[in-house]
C-alpha cells in the first residue's frame, strides 16, 4: 500500500515537473541569441524569399506563448514534431539513438556496480589496511581523470595497439565495452567511496559487534547486517549515477563516435533545433524521475522501517 501511494503521488508530481521543465527549456532556447535559421539556410547566402518562407514555416515570427502552445498541443497528442535541421520525425530520431544510449548506460551501470560496490565494501571492512589504501588511491586517480581522456587512452591502447575492440561506431556489444569502461570508471570511483563510507559507518554499529560476539559467520554478518544496512546511501548514489549515464555521456559518445542521445542534445542545442531539444529534455526528465522513483521504491523494499512508515 505504501508503495502504491508513493508511486501515485510521484506520478502527479512528475507530470507537473515535466510541464515546468518543457516551458523552461522552450523559454531558455527562445531567449538565447540566434535561431535555427543558420542551420536551415545552409552554408550559402540565402534569398529574402527563402528566409521569409522559413520564418513562416517554423513560426519564428510568432510571439513566444503562441509557439510554445503550438508545440505543447502537438506534444500532448504524442506528436513531437519534425527536426528542423535534418527533417526527420523527432520520435524516430530518438528511437534510433535510444538503443545506443541504453546499451551503453546498462553496460556502464554493470561495470560501475560490479567494480564500485565490492571495492567499497572491501576497503570499508579492512579500514586502514593496505587494500583500503590501494583502493582509495586508485579511486582517487579515476575520479581525477576526465572521461574523454580515459576514452582516448583506452582507444589508443585497446583498439589501435592491441586491436581487441573496434575503433568507432555501433554494432555488436564489443563496440560498447571501451565506451562503457571510459564512462564508468569515474562514477565507479564515486560509488566505491560512498560504499566504503557506508560500510565503515555500519561496521561501527553495536549490532555488528554484537553479531560478532554471538559468533555469527562472517558471511552471515555480511548478508544479514552489513549489506542491507549500507544499501540505502549506496542505492541513492547508484540511482543518480545510472540516470546520469542515460543523459550525460556526451564526451564519451563523441570520442567513440557513438550516435547517442548526449551528442544529439549538444548538436540540437547549438543548432536551436527546438523540437529535438524539447523531446530530449523531457526524456531526460522522465529518466531522472523514474530513476528516483525506483530508488525510493527500493528503499521501501530494503528497509522495513520505511515500509512501516516509522522512519
Amino acid at each position: 500500500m505504501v508503495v502504491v501511494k508513493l508511486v501515485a503521488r510521484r506520478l502527479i508530481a512528475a507530470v507537473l515537473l515535466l510541464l515546468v521543465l518543457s516551458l523552461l527549456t522552450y523559454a531558455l532556447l527562445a531567449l538565447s541569441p540566434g535561431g535555427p535559421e543558420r542551420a536551415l539556410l545552409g552554408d550559402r547566402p540565402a534569398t529574402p524569399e527563402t528566409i521569409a518562407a522559413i520564418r513562416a514555416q517554423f513560426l519564428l515570427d510568432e510571439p513566444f506563448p503562441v509557439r510554445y502552445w503550438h508545440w505543447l498541443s502537438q506534444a500532448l497528442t504524442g506528436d513531437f514534431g519534425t527536426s528542423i535541421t535534418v527533417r526527420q520525425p523527432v520520435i524516430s530520431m530518438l528511437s534510433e539513438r535510444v538503443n545506443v544510449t541504453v546499451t551503453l548506460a546498462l553496460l556502464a551501470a554493470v561495470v560501475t556496480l560490479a567494480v564500485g560496490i565490492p571495492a567499497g565494501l572491501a576497503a570499508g571492512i579492512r579500514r586502514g589496511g593496505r587494500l583500503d589504501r590501494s583502493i582509495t588511491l586508485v579511486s582517487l586517480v579515476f575520479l581525477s581523470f576526465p572521461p574523454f581522456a580515459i576514452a582516448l587512452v583506452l582507444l589508443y591502447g585497446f583498439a589501435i595497439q592491441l586491436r581487441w575492440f573496434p575503433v568507432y561506431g555501433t554494432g555488436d556489444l564489443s563496440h560498447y565495452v571501451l565506451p562503457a569502461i571510459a564512462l564508468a570508471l569515474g562514477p565507479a570511483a564515486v560509488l566505491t567511496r560512498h560504499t566504503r563510507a557506508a560500510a565503515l559507518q555500519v561496521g561501527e554499529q553495536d549490532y555488528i559487534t554484537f553479531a560478532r560476539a554471538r559468533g555469527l559467520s562472517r558471511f552471515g554478518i555480511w548478508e544479514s547486517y552489513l549489506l542491507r544496512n549500507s544499501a540505502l546511501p549506496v542505492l541513492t548514489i547508484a540511482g543518480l549515477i545510472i540516470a546520469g549515464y542515460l543523459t550525460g555521456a556526451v564526451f564519451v559518445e563523441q570520442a567513440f563516435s557513438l550516435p547517442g542521445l548526449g551528442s544529439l542534445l549538444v548538436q540540437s542545442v547549438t543548432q536551436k533545433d527546438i523540437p529535438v531539444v524539447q523531446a530530449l529534455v523531457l526524456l531526460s526528465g522522465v529518466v531522472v524521475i523514474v530513476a528516483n522513483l525506483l530508488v525510493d521504491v527500493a528503499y521501501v523494499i530494503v528497509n522495513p522501517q520505511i515500509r512501516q512508515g516509522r522512519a
Partner: protein
Amino acid sequence: MATSSQADVLDIAHGFNGPSTFVQSSVLQSPVALDADGQIVPQLAKAWTQPTPDTYVFELRDDVVFSDGTPMTAEDVAFSLERHLDPAVASQAAGLLTAVESVRASGKHEVTVDLKFPTQAFLASAPMVWQVVPKSLAEAHPQDLGTPEVGVIGTGPYKVTKFSLTDGIVLEANSEYWGPKPAIERVKVVAITDPEAMRLAISSGSVDGTSFIPPEDARKWTDMKGVDTRFFAGNSIASIYLNVQDPHLSDVHVRRAIAHAVNTEAVQRLVVGDQAQPAQTIVTVPQLKALYGDDFEEVTSDLPSYPYDLDAAKSELAKSEFPDGFEMTVNYSSGSESADALQAIAADLSTIGIEVVLNPVPDDAYWSTLMRHEDLTIGITDLGYGSADVGELLPDFLTSTGAKAEGFNFSQYSTPEMDAKVTEALSLTGDARKLVVTDILTEVADQALYVPLYSTNAGIALNERYAGDIGVWTRDYFSAIRPVDQ
C-alpha cells in the same frame, strides 16, 4: 569513408553542407559537371547552346535511367531546377539561382532555361545545385526529400541502399548507370566527429579514407604509416573584413593602415598552420586560375598591396582623421580558432595606436549578430566555394545584395557603380571579363575593403590499398577511387 559529421539530408535543397554533398555527388547528377580543370562539361546533357545571352538550351542524353529503372525525362530535369525557385521548398540552393527566370521542358530530350539577366554564374553553379531527381518524388516531398524516411533516387554511379543518421550510409554501384561502372562496388560512409578518433580510425585501417582533415593537424596525418595523405589548393578564401560603415573604418587611410599592420603570415600560422597558400586578393586561387590561366599571379601582383610594415601603417594612419589612433571593439566567437589570430592582430594594431578591445561572444550569439550585420568592425571570415567561376564569389563580397542581412558582404561596401561592375563581370566572357574583374579587384585593394589572408588547402587521406585522382574539382569521390591492385 568517413565524414566529420553525419551527412543528414541527401538533397541539395536542405542538405547544402560538406558531409551531405560528399555523398550526394556520387548519387545525384546534373546536366553539366566539372572536369579536372574546373571547366563545365556535359553530363546528363549531351550538349548545350546559348541562343541568346540569357537563354540556355540543354540537349539531354536519351539513355539515362534512374536507379529504380524509370527513364529520366525532360520534365524530371526541368522540375529538378524549378523546385529550388519555389519559396515553399525554402531551398538552401536558391541563393545561387536568383538569376533563373524560368525552366521548361522544351522537347522530348530538351530543357530550356531563361535567365533574368545574362550571367556566367548560372552555368557555373549548375553542377552543384541542379541535382536531377524524379519529378514525382520531388513533388511529393518538397520538404523531406533525401531524408532517411523518404530517401532519394538519382542517375549517378551509386545508389543509396541504407541511410541512417546513426549507423551511416551504404551506397552500392547502380546497375542501371549509363556511364562506366565504378571500381568499388560498395561504399560505407560513417561519421566520426572527434578529429583524433577519426585519425586513429584511418590509421588503424578500420576506415579507408576521408576528405575531412583539419589543416592544423596536417603533420600528424602526413606522418601516418600505411595512409597516403595529400593536400591541394582549396577553393576557399580567408580574409579580414573592414566595415566601411564604422565611424573609424569609413576612413580609407585607417583601413590601409590596418592592412599594413596585419601580419598575414602570422595569422595564417595561428589559424591553419602550414597547409594554406597566402592570398593576394579576395578571389580563390582555383577561381583565379580558371579566369586568368596559370599566369594569374601576373595580375594579382599588380594589384595595390599592403605588405606588413608598421612604419608604413603609422604614416597611413597619420594621413587619416584619427592620426593619434582610436579604440575599437571587436566581437569574436569564443570557440573559434581565430581567437589567437585576433589577439596577434590586436597587438600589432596597438603599436600604431589603434586599441582593439576583444569581446568574446558565445558561438551562436556571434553568428547571429554577424549575419544580421550588427556591431561589425573587423573580423576574420573563411568562405568556401563550389565552382571555378568568380561570379559565385564577387556578389557575396561586394554587392548591395550581399550587404543585406544574411549576406556575406561584411565590409558593407555597396555602391551602384560596384553593383554595375559585378553584374557586367557576370555577363561577360573572355578578355573583356578579365578586364572588368581586374578593375573590380583593383578597386577592392585600393579601398582596402578586405585584407586577403590565405586559401586553406583541402586534403584527402586514403589507405595505401586505394588510389584516386582527386583534386579541388572532384565531386564524385567514390567513383574516383580504385583499389591499387586493379
